[in-house]
């Protein structure tokens, strides 16, 4: 049973004494007093006897299976590093910063002469497969892959032509693991 007080507290405010309540969310006990750790509204749970502060700040915690967006910042034979800039939440793109990596890029190899299926600067849509210190991503999936890419020779934006990515400036095609909505990604921004 939560009782929400209309009282607004800031860090350092005393919510209750340790004899009355236990420290709950966003609170700590110091010198037998329950102290607020953030700015928000006081919520006292009289069933569990905890004093909490509702800060209304939503913290995004990535989980396995989450779809993330980012750009490739480093690419070598062992690992590709991605600077993640957004995450999908309830079908909408939410600002989120983290670093991710794709381990076995060679899984996407199709052409031995041009093994790189992602290149530095590519904007990708990936799926989180492991949450650790950094996020491990994968591009294996029908809706995953490169969303926007530039020609590695002239930096012109590549377009889809006959199912492959093509540079209209150099008249040459490049290999990427492109997403089906390459060029016009279907993203709803929040």
């Amino acid at each position, binding site marked *: 049973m939560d009782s929400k007080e209309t009282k*607004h507290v*800031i*860090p*350092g*405010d*005393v919510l209750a004494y340790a004899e009355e309540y236990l420290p709950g969310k*966003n609170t*700590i006990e*110091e010198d037998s007093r329950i*102290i607020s*750790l*953030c*700015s*928000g*509204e006081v919520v006292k749970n009289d069933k569990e006897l905890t004093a909490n502060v509702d*800060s*209304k*700040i939503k*913290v995004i915690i990535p989980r396995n299976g989450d779809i993330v967006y980012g750009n490739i910042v480093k690419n070598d034979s062992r690992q590709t590093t991605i600077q993640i800039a957004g995450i999908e939440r309830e079908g909408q793109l939410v*600002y989120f*910063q*983290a*670093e991710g990596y794709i381990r076995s890029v060679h899984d996407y190899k199709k052409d031995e002469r041009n093994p790189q299926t992602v290149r530095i600067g590519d904007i990708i849509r990936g799926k989180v497969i492991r949450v650790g*210190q*950094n996020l491990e991503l994968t591009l294996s999936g029908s809706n995953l892959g490169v969303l926007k890419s530039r020609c590695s020779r002239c930096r012109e934006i590549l377009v889809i032509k006959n199912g492959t990515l093509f540079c209209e400036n150099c008249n040459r095609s490049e290999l990427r693991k492109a997403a089906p909505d390459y060029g016009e990604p279907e993203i709803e921004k929040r």
Partner: protein
Amino acid sequence: MGTPSDKKLINENGVRLDGRGDEEIRPIRITTNVLERADGSAFMEWGGNKIMVAVYGPREAYPKHTQDIEKSVIKARYNMAAFSVDERKRPGPDRRSTEISKVISEALSAAVLVEQFPRTQIDVFIEVIQADAGTRIASLTAASVALASAGIPMRDMVVGCSAGKVEDRIVLDLSKDEDNFGQADLPMAVLSKSKKVVLVQMDGDLSKEEFGKATGMVLQATDRIAEIQRKALSEKYNIENLSESNTGGE
């Protein structure tokens, strides 16, 4: 302290150049969450000071050798805009801004629960847009509000004020002329509730009694400034609540 001057900083009625009494502080206004892309931000006007603070994090500390396996590292960067002072300031870090960044980082580390976020950094970017004496204390006070608006857990708010000696009188919150031509300047910051001192620096000379009087005045002033911090955070919170309830009703 600047060079001695013939300028009369306090008149015969005990009134200072800007019309304040000894224990009066300049008008303070704090606005929170002014930047959309920062995790937390604050804009502070303290007299003629105009300071913008943006907080990002906690996020993984880079370069990796700066990581602490036991706690988060607060990286404050104090920067004065080239146009913030009368004579153009050469842009970029200098000895003064490096020192102020360091003392602000240390003062904030005393308030933030750094041990909750090992291997991370919390970036605090402080941009002084207009300077009018007491910028380090104003920056620290605004940074504390920005951290709270970012939802970073803190034991207490950091609040500060400066005192000094002008024409042999101890006065609170020195203005630019008092700072330049006064006899001493004592910026001091404390944790709002516990009154633990997190920053104290001194320029010039004060006797033991004068030091005691100055710190007493600062401690009293911090209560008033803490109320302004609280108001700034509550106002934003009420506005957010109001807009949420409006959307909910549609």
